[in-house]
């Protein structure tokens, strides 16, 4: 098992990456020391290749192990915000402002936010709700990337850069199970000709699988 959280070995892990929103990982770590709950304080790797930057939002020890839930980014997307009004700005400004208010940051490769808005009203609610309002105008999607940044843009559906071994798939090709070597399949990419909407990784001592749902 080569996965780890902050250098402590993973016993098992389940990670889900939705088409829109934050990835969430439920992990069991071989340590009895609580994980650092600071924003972006959890450095998770499932494959020893990609490091996922997230925040521990819940944890408990049992039998000398730590069970924890890690969400992508700084863990601030469910934070409640006050209403705010903007005039004559690109949509990027209220989005960045919203993210900054909850400790999150916009991924530099984001797009679709240059649209100019004469007026923009953010109503009171969570940061996720504010991002959803922006998305309704901008189009595309948003999600928390492995590095913890919040990405806005249009999915490019680029092929997954590594070969995958399809273990099982539905007749309608709506989902597939892959024997994963690395966690390289992400939402917004294409696997074996299928556009990937959501991905779940399941890491166990004896195997590493990815479940993929098509758009």
């Amino acid at each position, binding site marked *: 098992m080569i996965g780890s959280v902050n250098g402590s070995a993973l016993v098992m892990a389940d990670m889900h990456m939705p088409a829109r929103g934050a990835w969430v990982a439920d992990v069991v770590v071989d340590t009895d020391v609580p994980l650092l709950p600071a924003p972006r304080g959890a450095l998770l790797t499932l494959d020893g290749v990609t490091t996922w930057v997230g925040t521990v939002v819940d944890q408990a020890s049992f039998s000398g192990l730590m069970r924890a839930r890690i969400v992508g980014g700084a863990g601030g997307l469910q934070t409640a915000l006050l*209403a705010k*009004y903007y005039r004559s700005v690109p949509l990027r400004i209220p989005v960045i402002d919203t993210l900054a208010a909850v400790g999150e940051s916009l991924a530099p490769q984001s797009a679709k936010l240059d649209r100019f808005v004469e*007026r923009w*009203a953010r109503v*009171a609610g969570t940061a996720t709700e504010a991002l959803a309002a922006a998305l*309704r105008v901008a189009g595309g999607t948003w999600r928390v990337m492995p590095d913890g940044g919040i990405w806005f843009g249009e999915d490019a559906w680029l092929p997954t850069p590594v070969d995958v071994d399809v273990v099982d798939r539905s007749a309608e090709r709506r989902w597939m199970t892959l024997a994963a070597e690395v966690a390289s399949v992400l939402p917004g990419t294409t696997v074996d000709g299928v556009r990937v909407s959501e991905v779940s990784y399941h890491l166990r001592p004896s195997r590493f699988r990815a479940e993929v749902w098509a758009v």
Partner: protein
Amino acid sequence: MSALRDGLDALIERRTRPVATYAAFWPATVVAQAADGLLELQPDSDAVPGVTGVPIRVGIAGAKLEVPRGARCLLGWEGADPQRPYVAAWVDGTMPGASRIAIASGPAGNVAAEHVITTEAVTNIVLQVVKLIPGMSTPGTAETAVATLLEAASQTALDPVTGSAIIAALTHAFEAASAKPPAVAGVQLQPGIGCAGLIVG
């Protein structure tokens, strides 16, 4: 099962709340009106922000409305779009002063008429008041107030200040006759369409 239902309810509420917020009407107060007619508003609720540059949807094609500071209105967003706030309506009985409505007709704007607070409107109001309030037929303050109104109404046009004075006098006449317009049986007084603060029968 209850936990499942609660979870589902919470999910639906979480997903629909933002749109529902934009889709609702929010009571607000006019802070200022710019020269271009756009309003600065302060909503009562902190669920929505204070807004500027807000257009008024008057309800009459081509009409423009001037409203005083402190006027009460309903703030909404067209299509529940955060970019498109607008004033939907005016709250009855909260207009602290006169309003002014201008109506232009014709695509080229070559035919135009301006209704400030016209002599016709005031005359009609006064006549209705006289009909509605029994005390008006007796000598006294109310009668004097009505006479003043009629004299003012004989002018060919009234500017907003004069119009405001007449409306104030009209209100005084109601009070003098100890009659409140909504209490008149069978008659419901309400703001004119798009004419904030202008009361008609």
